[in-house]
């Protein structure tokens, strides 16, 4: 029971987020979203930009570990 708590929470959270995400994309088709820059008015552009940025940040950060990560006591040596 205890172990399932977080997993079930995660599952329902994922479900709701996916539903909200789908709704947001559908909403984009119902009206013309005005933006400062015309290319940002393409359907789902902020969604795409958010997704790609996030993946890029995490993966680049992970790669940067090669150069930036040291042992915990690095400065004490």
């Amino acid at each position, binding site marked *: 029971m*205890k*172990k399932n*708590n*977080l997993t079930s*929470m*995660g599952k329902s959270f*994922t479900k709701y*987020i*996916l539903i*909200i*995400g789908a709704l*947001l*994309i559908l*909403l*984009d088709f119902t*009206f013309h*979203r*005005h*933006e*400062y*820059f015309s290319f*940002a008015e393409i359907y*789902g*552009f*902020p*969604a*795409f*930009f*958010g*997704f*790609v*940025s*996030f*993946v890029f*940040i*995490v*993966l*680049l*950060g*992970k790669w*940067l*570990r090669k*150069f*930036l*990560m*040291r*042992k*915990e*006591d*690095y*400065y004490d040596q």
Partner: protein
Amino acid sequence: MISNIIPGLLMILTSFLLPTIPQYFRQPAMLLSVGLSALSLFNGYGTFLEWDVLGLNLILYQSDSLTFPFSIIFHIAAVLVIIFSWHSKNLMEHMATIAYAGSAIGALHAGDFFSLFIWWEATALTSVFIVFAGNTKAARDAAMRYLIIQVSSGVLLLIGACLLLYQTGNHNLTVLDLTTDFGIFIFIAFGIKAAFPFLNGWLQDSYPESSVTGTVALSAFTTKLAIYALARTFPGTDSLIWIGAIMTAFPVFFAVIENDLRRVLSFSLNNQLGFMVVGIGIGTELSLNGTVAHAFVHIIYKALLFMSMGAVLYRAGTTKASELGGLYKYMPFTTIFCIIGAMSISAFPLFSGFVAKSLIMSSLGGMGMVLIYFVLFFASAGVLEHSGIKIPYFAFFAHERKSKVKEAPINMLIAMGIAAFLCIGIGVFPKYLYQILPYTVEYQPYTIDHVISQLQLLVFAIIAFLFLVKFKLYPSEIKSTVLNSDWFYRKMLPGIGKPLFKKIGLLTEFIYENLRFFFRLILNKSHKFSNSSYIKVTTPSFAATILISILFIMLLIVLL
């Protein structure tokens, strides 16, 4: 009478009196001093106190539409910190905190560069004790580095102020530019405290080393004082747009891989300052309003996030992501408050970050700055990553926790509750925030375009997170140190300096050794000479031969 006292000065006086006040009355006394100082907010705008000293006219107390919002939020932050640290019995930290908050408020009301310099150094000298109060070896070392950097900033400011006075005959706070040498000195002085790229190492170095309560106090004042100073002296300076954009984007990557959650928040603080710096760089009424609004809401939600991590540190004993997780079950209120702070900083609609950040984004959009606009849009996804998801996820969820911990003490919950209330209140009723901004601008943050666009960005960034976790692409937490710009003076300079000085030491030793050898040689010769029988008759002593040798050497030196 009280209207002519410099705001914040009473708080500093209270700090000196604190040791004489019985323990249970210390926090009420501190609150009272903040309340009395806050009465200055009703004074209106103008110059209230000047002092002629050494032929200089120092403006010690002035206020206008730019100081006003900063003064309000500094007073609110001081109250939050006092409530949050109500349980603490650490006298030194209380004294330092109230004096630090007082100095920062005093600095806002300085009308010339010399008065500003005095307060500038006062914030440095008081806040260093807050870092010191972390009371570990790491904290003490960090405090010394912090002091050196902060005082250097003050010295640069003083040099700039002197040059300004010498070259123009004026020392009042005015708009400067980067074509003058004093402008550059003052710019760098402000830039150090505003944590510009490569000048930012002190921030992530010192803030996370401070105590449970100390970091909350530190997060509010120093950097925002620098933002205020930049907004007053360098509005519309183009280079600030680029500097700010770099500040929003770069700390994001460091925050992804940092293990200490309070250090993650320090990187996030740096990224938030970037948004404000961009606003100053654009320099329009809308963007400067955006900077002030962002500083205002930022102080609240950043304090809220640092408070929630402070509570975690207080109860669980660590803020290392690799050792936390599952706290939601034991600290439900802290979890909720932390999530409110996280949603505010991520700029979800109906939270305070949204109504402030929109001003800056709109001014960028209005000016057609497409590249910077998308750098900041990208950085918004980054904010969601490190402050919106990473902080609450790794502290309170991630995996089940084995050992029990208690919920945060009631005073901490009250402080977090007030901050959370303000985050939502400002988000829902932004007009109250907009009313106190320096310029009157009609602005409506809640347009359907804007809300949908922001929600799409945030929701799909969250989906990206779930996707990365699902496919095990999200970097696991590793106990580690992440290199930052403080590496230059913590490793690189000592790395060059130590061997260099060692070499110089060896060289001087070598020279001395040889000199000693020559000296012995001469000494022996002269001994021999003075002891030989034929010379004994005419030369009375050994001393004479030494004298002659010295004279000979001197002659050689002169001739050469």
